[in-house]
């Protein structure tokens, strides 16, 4: 029963569902972008600044000067042979390596973020179709049953799936259909008991257009 009730296609109402999928994805894209930009400037910006050429240069000069100050207070002979600014200038290679490392880390992080972003959008898109189908499914069913009703089938009843939204609509529809069914069935019964006449025949002809549970 459950299997029989299972929908094979989730994209039931293309226009309606894609419309909402687009809304959800756009809202999510805006939120994600704000989050990412905030994250970038909040976390990465400080890392980038710390590893910037200027900052590295300043740190190296500071450390070199502290070293030189100390050396100048305890000189041994001649012009100081202690690690000086010259030596620290040679560590430019180190600073380049540090920058390469941070660039590599950032590129990796960005690549992963983009991959995760694409995956996220895919899941969100799929999830949105699944979610909207819980609304569009009942609406589709309701439209079908309305057609049945219009065709005169008063025995038709709606049965939504367990987790479909707007379950209450089904009850109201079924109550309405039952009420009509009972009324038309009763009228059919009364008309059948009347003595034949041309007027009665005409009524019977009209009533025969309705498919009811009673005759």
């Amino acid at each position, binding site marked *: 029963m459950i299997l029989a009730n299972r929908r094979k296609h989730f994209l039931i109402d293309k226009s309606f569902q894609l419309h909402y999928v687009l809304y959800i994805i756009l809202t999510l894209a805006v939120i994600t972008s704000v989050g990412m930009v905030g994250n970038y400037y909040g976390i990465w910006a400080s890392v980038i600044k710390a590893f910037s050429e*200027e*900052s590295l*240069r*300043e*740190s190296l*000069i*500071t*450390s*070199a*000067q*502290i070293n*030189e*100050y*100390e050396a*100048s*207070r*305890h*000189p041994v*002979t*001649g*012009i*100081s042979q202690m690690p*000086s*600014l*010259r030596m620290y200038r040679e560590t430019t290679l180190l600073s380049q390596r540090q920058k390469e490392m941070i660039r590599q880390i950032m590129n990796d992080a960005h690549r992963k973020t983009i991959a995760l972003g694409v995956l996220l959008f895919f899941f969100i898109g799929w999830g949105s179709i699944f979610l909207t189908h819980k609304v569009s499914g009942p609406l589709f069913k309701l439209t079908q049953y309305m057609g049945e009703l219009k065709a005169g089938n008063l025995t038709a009843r709606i049965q939504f799936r367990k987790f479909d939204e707007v379950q209450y609509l089904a009850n109201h529809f079924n109550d309405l259909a039952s009420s009509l069914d009972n009324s038309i069935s009763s009228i059919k019964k009364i008309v059948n008991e009347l003595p034949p006449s041309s007027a009665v025949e005409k009524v019977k002809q009209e009533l025969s257009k309705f498919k009811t549970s009673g005759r």
Partner: protein
Amino acid sequence: MKLRQISLILLLTLWVQIPVSFSEEIVSLSHEDTVLLKRIQKDSLQYFMTYTDPETGLTQDSSRSGSPASIAATGFALASFAIGSVNGLLTYREAYEKIERTLDTLESRTPNEHGFFYHFIDPKTGRRVWNSEISSIDTALLIAGALLASSYFKGTGLETRVKRLYDRVDWDWMRNGSAQICHGWKPKEGFLPYYWDMYSEHLILQALALGADVHQVPEQVWRSWTRESEDWEGNKIVYSYTGSLFTYQYSHAFIDFRNLDDQGINYFKNSAFASLANKKFCLLNQTEYQTYQNGIWGLSASLGPDGYQAYGAEPGLALHDGTIAPYAAIGSLPFTPNESMEAIRALYEQYGARLYGPYGFRDAFNLDRNWWASEYLGIDQGIVVMMIENQINEGSIWNHFMKLPAVNRWTERAKLKKQPA
């Protein structure tokens, strides 16, 4: 005979003729000289106005971008703000608030060890920078600056707060159980293997350590360091290891040594002899280094083409490579006013276009290597502000500092004889 040899003979002749002596008479500066000195003082003080953090009151070691704060530079800043408040360079209230801000930081935000501070700290947070050491001399310069500043604001809360800061320093701990005071301490390494064991800029440290109300060092610490001396052209000079001029100046910026006798040594005269020796040393080497020509002298620790070096003259190690620090001649103004003034004028007139900027003279230059410092150093601008003040305002800093109870205690405990003025 080669030109080089002729110059050498001429120089030797000159050597004999240059008198290594100084006049003890009060030298009155010309109006133009005073105007120039006032301008240099005003501009140098601007360094502290610009490079002292408005939140923490900590002063950058140099004008270089990213420079850490130095506690010695901060000490000079405190002194400079106080001086500026009486010279009209900043208002009384401005100076008071600036000093107060620095004290706030030193009291609560800057880490200390037994009351001693790290030499280099972050100007924004007050935290230790790199592997900077807890420094005895730099803490002394900071406390001296604070004490001097508080003496300009007598009867205010600053006095009590500075006294508390001074009392917090455990000077005796810095001896590490030895007879002399140690240069410093590091958290992992412990005490540095260097002690203040001969004449240098540490006299101010000695004065504060001996004159302290609490945690004072024993009297014998004063006698424990050696007074190495050398007869240099007929003058006996108690010299520092490097022969850097600043070693003869820093303590003298605060302390008036003119009438103090230490076992027959007058350190004021000693600094005057050392300044003259520094001038003559430059003169003797002017054929080798173009920078030393045209009346330019002043070998002292400064930035140079190969980084910061303890440049100096004889007597002493006398490292030199043609780099002159303008602050050196200015810092000797009270000792050698005529000679210093000549050098200041020469520096200003000949090289002012490249050497003089918005904060006074830049740190150093070297014509031979065509190297010009782009930076100003806080401690070097500080000695300029203070020594000019002592020179043009008749020792006004000395008058304030010498009245401090700590100074009296030091002179008594060190058994310094007060000579008649």
